[in-house]
């Protein structure tokens, strides 16, 4: 009995946590159907302004261009980050030595520096390279993500050393082992990383804001932010835009969810 009571308490706690997490999102969707004054007054029931809000949004921004820009940046950045980070994570774990461990530790120390602190030198570099207001400038600094390298290195620990040995005996070169064995064996790791990287790029705000200067180059996330920073923001429109901006990442999440959860959690026995 004691133990069952325990479990009930724990589930109650978890359910409250889940509700608290989901609640703001529900409010976001509800908000998209309401007009601005209702939202500010804290109205929590669906309204009838969804279509009006959407029409107002399309009058203010070029949705197609924004989604194209966001998708282009997120897809290219995700692909490049996956390649670079998985190669680096693999190399750090497989060719491990005291030296490589020390290099890795210093990379991790870099995680403690806020990106904001690095923006000025990065901006100067991009300016020197004449890349200001290009998508290339948005993508480059994201590729060598220390966090994602770290994630791949951790995941590589579960890659059996004997598979490498078997592949070497079977005549594969180092890059063939990576491509023909490591990549397919670690596919759920890649799925989870894809979600994380795509989301981070899709939702990136600070750096794109600084580097992208014309409306034609901006992303949906920047557009949402600028709607919000208007002198008198129309919160209904903002919420429609935010909801739309969230859909692609939610979509990716649900497409890759099975592999994602498998890659991160393992399955219930």
């Amino acid at each position: 009995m004691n133990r069952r009571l325990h479990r009930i308490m724990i589930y109650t706690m978890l359910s409250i946590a889940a509700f608290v997490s989901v609640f703001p999102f529900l409010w976001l969707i509800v908000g998209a159907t309401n007009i601005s004054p209702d939202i500010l007054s804290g109205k929590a029931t669906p309204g009838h302004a969804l279509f009006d809000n959407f029409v107002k949004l399309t009058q203010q921004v070029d949705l197609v261009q924004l989604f194209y820009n966001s998708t282009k940046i997120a897809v290219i950045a995700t692909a490049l980050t996956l390649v670079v980070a998985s190669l680096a994570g693999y190399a750090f774990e497989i060719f491990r030595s005291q030296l490589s461990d020390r290099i890795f530790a210093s990379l991790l120390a870099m995680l403690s520096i806020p990106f904001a602190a690095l923006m000025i030198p990065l901006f100067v570099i991009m300016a020197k390279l004449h890349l200001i207001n290009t998508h290339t400038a948005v993508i480059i600094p994201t590729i060598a993500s220390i966090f994602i390298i770290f994630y791949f290195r951790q995941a590589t620990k579960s890659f059996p050393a004997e598979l490498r040995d078997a592949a070497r005996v079977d005549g594969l070169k180092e890059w063939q082992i990576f491509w023909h064995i490591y990549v397919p064996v670690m596919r759920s790791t890649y799925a989870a990383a894809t979600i994380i990287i795509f989301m981070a790029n899709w939702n990136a705000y600070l750096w794109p804001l600084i580097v992208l200067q014309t409306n034609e180059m901006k992303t949906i996330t920047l557009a949402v932010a600028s709607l919000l920073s208007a002198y008198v923001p129309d919160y209904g429109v903002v919420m429609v835009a935010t909801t739309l901006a969230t859909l692609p990442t939610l979509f990716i999440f649900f497409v890759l969810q099975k592999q994602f959860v498998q890659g991160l959690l393992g399955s219930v026995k």
Partner: protein
Amino acid sequence: MSDLNLRDVRKSFGSFEVIKGVNLDIASREFVVFVGPSGCGKSTLLRMIAGLEDISSGDISIGGKRVNDLDPSKRGIAMVFQSYALYPHLTVRENMGFALRFAGVEKDAITAQVDGVAKTLGLNALMERYPKELSGGQRQRVAIGRAIVRKPEVFLFDEPLSNLDAELRVHMRIELARLHKTLATTVIYVTHDQVEAMTLADKIVVMREGVVAQVGSPLDVYDNPDNMFVAGFIGSPKINFVKGVVDSASKTKLKVTLPSYNNSAFDFPITASALKVGDSVVIGLRPQYFGTGGKQKFNLTVELVEHLGGESFVYAGNGSGELLTIATQSARGIKSGEKFEARFDASKALLFTEAGERVR
């Protein structure tokens, strides 16, 4: 030709030497087992032969050809790993044909060769399955099949049976012996299990701390161990060691007294010896050597009896704290606390110096 020669082979990790100069000749078609406790370097030595570890110094040659700097795939070897190391994303068929695919063999030829091997091993029904859909024994068999497909001159096995349960292990042991007969290739097999070593090997290589302790046929190593380490490692239950002192030495015999057994004296029929009177020695007596016959005897009290059904192990002592293990097939009636005479023939006993080297 698939003979294999190791000349003063060494391996260091940093300043730590794990293989301390191994010389070894393995003839074509021999089944050689490297055996030793964990950390003795047997797996490292196998991996050096495979080319998966660099050699710090020395030479390895296969079929007369020096292979020190050759890639694993160019050495004419195939390896079966402890965890089987099947590629989880490939079917059994693809696993078996993988090496051929990367060697540039044509698709039809791969199919023919893989199917041929699969037939020998009874794998035909499993060809389209993935490793995770196979039992432990089936995975093992696929791993062996993958090795056979490459038609190697030398098979390397790294503790291949350690992940199987006891019954399957016995079964696979017999299959491996059969397979070796059929394929007629050289096999090098690493295990920490002396039973596997005894039952499978043509030649046993007992290793200890990076050094070869003894090389010989199973019965040779069992009957005539070169030192206490080999005597203690090979044979089950473990051999009994009793400390003694040389009491007198003549040209034809040696008298040894055993302090922990009331200084009782034993005569060894030795013709020549490096031992002097007063030297400490160790006598090795296998648990199977005791019986009701034999000139020598211990008066013992039974402390514990273990019945295995067919055989029983009696642990008995004379109150000094030391216990002797005696293996017998007629101890069903014996109870702990009973007194009895354990007789043996001194000619069967092994004699070692204090440092553990065999005298006779």
